């Protein structure tokens, strides 16, 4: 056996074991979610379900009790969607506009502004929670959907601006000059020339923002208010309820349901994500 071949086999062995490490918990969750409680009590956590049942999934979705209400986590699912969609759309819109302004218009102090924005990305978010609670309360949007969306958009600005600015910085400045000579102003150049060239980076930004918002727990808990609690918070309420028997199969199903959106997003848009990252890396 040649050393090259041996190295190849070693490499695949490593990759396989790494994949196993990540996939094993997922496997356990999947099989458990399809089992009945009686079967779970037998303790064979790696065994395939003896009698395949979707009861746990149905219960997790629509009947299980999270805290005081017993309507499953579907309410959290729609809440999370209601939070994630506007948070992503506005974050991308403002991030793209910011990045465009910083990359092309080079206003006086633009670099200082950008540096400050980047510093914002490194300040721990917990520090800002109390001030933001006060601000949103003052604006009368604390504990509302607009409140949590605003908070998400604010916290996304450094990363979104950085993404778009770097992408736009790689575009030839002559393009922008051509639009100026053609008479297009700030917004028209953005809308007609720059934005149509942005889909690769928009996909990247959308994936990052949707997963970020979807996986958020803390901000949702603090700012969303009782009626708009996202799925993650509901999941926590469900899993940490200690009255009665612990419904492992329902917990697993609820967790998988919660993880579904980012998972589907990566599977469907992963290719574009890599492409967007790669074009940014090559040009910037």
């Amino acid at each position, binding site marked *: 056996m040649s050393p090259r071949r041996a190295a190849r086999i070693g490499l695949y062995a490593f990759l396989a074991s790494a994949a196993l490490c990540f996939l094993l918990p997922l496997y356990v969750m999947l099989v458990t979610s399809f089992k009945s409680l009686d079967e779970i009590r037998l303790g064979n956590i790696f065994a395939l379900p003896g009698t395949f049942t979707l009861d746990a999934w149905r219960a997790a979705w629509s009947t299980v009790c999270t805290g005081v209400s017993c309507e499953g986590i579907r309410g959290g699912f729609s809440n999370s969607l209601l939070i994630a969609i506007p948070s992503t759309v506005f974050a991308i819109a403002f991030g793209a506009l910011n990045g465009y302004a910083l990359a092309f218009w080079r206003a006086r102090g633009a670099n200082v502004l950008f540096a400050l924005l980047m510093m914002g990305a490194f300040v721990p978010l917990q520090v800002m929670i109390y001030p933001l609670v006060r601000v949103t309360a003052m604006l009368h949007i604390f504990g509302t959907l607009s409140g949590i969306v605003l908070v998400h958009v604010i916290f996304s600005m450094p990363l979104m601006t950085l993404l778009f600015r770097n992408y736009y910085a790689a575009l030839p400045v002559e393009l922008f000059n051509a639009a100026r*000579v053609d008479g*297009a102003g700030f917004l028209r150049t953005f809308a007609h020339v720059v934005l149509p060239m942005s889909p690769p980076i928009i996909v990247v930004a959308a994936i990052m923002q949707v997963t970020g918002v979807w996986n958020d727990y803390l901000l949702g808990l603090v700012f969303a208010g009782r009626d708009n609690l996202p799925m993650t918070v509901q999941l926590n309420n469900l899993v940490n309820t200690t009255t009665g028997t612990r419904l492992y199969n329902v917990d697993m199903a609820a967790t998988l349901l919660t993880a579904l959106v980012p998972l589907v997003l990566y599977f469907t848009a992963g290719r574009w994500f890599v492409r967007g990252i790669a074009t940014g890396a090559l040009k910037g």
Partner: protein
Amino acid sequence: MAAVALSNVSIVVGGTTIIEDLSFEVASGEFLVLLGPSGCGKSTLLNGIAGLVDLHGGSISIGGRDVTQADPADRNIGMVFQSYALYPTMTVAENLSFGLRVRGASRNQIAERVRRTAELLQLEAVLGRKPAQLSGGQRQRVAIGRALVREAPVFLLDEPLSNLDAGLRAELRRELKLLHRRIGATMIHVTHDQVEAMTLATRIAVMRSGRILQMGAPTEVYARPANPFVAGFLGSPQANFLNGAAHLEAGRLAFAMDGCHLDLGGYVLSGPAPTHGQPLTLAVRPEHIRIAADAPYEGRVTVVEPMGNHHVLWIEWRGHLISCVAHDNRDVRADQAVRFEFDAAQASLFDVADNRRI
């Protein structure tokens, strides 16, 4: 009335003065070429005229109107960029019409102008394509078309042909010249290619370090360069430069070097005659050196470069390598001794002290 007039223009970019106190005028219908090596400030100057770079001082007027503070869009110019800068997500037709659409031209007017421009530049067949689906020459035509479609009286062209391969460049150069003749607009064209400058320009401005060294008709700048830089920058192979001193004997001017005198009979002085012993630089173009059996100077051919319609002979003479463009004498071989003379009437003399033409 001048189509474009610059007075005391200076441009500072990032703390560095690129252009300092520059003034010139471009007459209506003129094809001015700004020629110079890279980094001489010619593109910056063009961007200044376009309004894409702010002036540090001075003023610019276009068509008699002061546009120093005006937006690029309000200067009544069309511009062609080096990288073409076509909008990649728009079709050719949309690229052409964008400026008109921004200005709110009527649908009929847009259609008519686009049709006319496409016809002029033979772009009718590709109007529906995106820039990525075009060849280099077609992209260049679209870029020119985008400037043309607004029918502005002044065109600014920033090295528009430099991204094309040699054959295409020559073809588009001809088209550009023809276009200029046909539409009669004022054009300011930036290039570092002397062939482009010579062939296109009605007037050349040779630039270096943010200054215009000489401005004039191509033939005049070529034949009577104002200083050694201009003499060396125009012409290929480069002019031959020799260092020596003026030698005046009985009112007859000669060029003294290494103990020999080159007769300058027939040289037309541009100013007062040099004094005896004044250090001078002599520039002689390769085509003004003639091989002849009865010629006064003898050298040895080191290299022969056949160019097809002529040969370039490199002659070693008194420690100098002299280039000579020979249209006859095709049988000259390397290592052969040849006799040559030069045409003093076509040569250039420069003062060593201040680089001025004498």
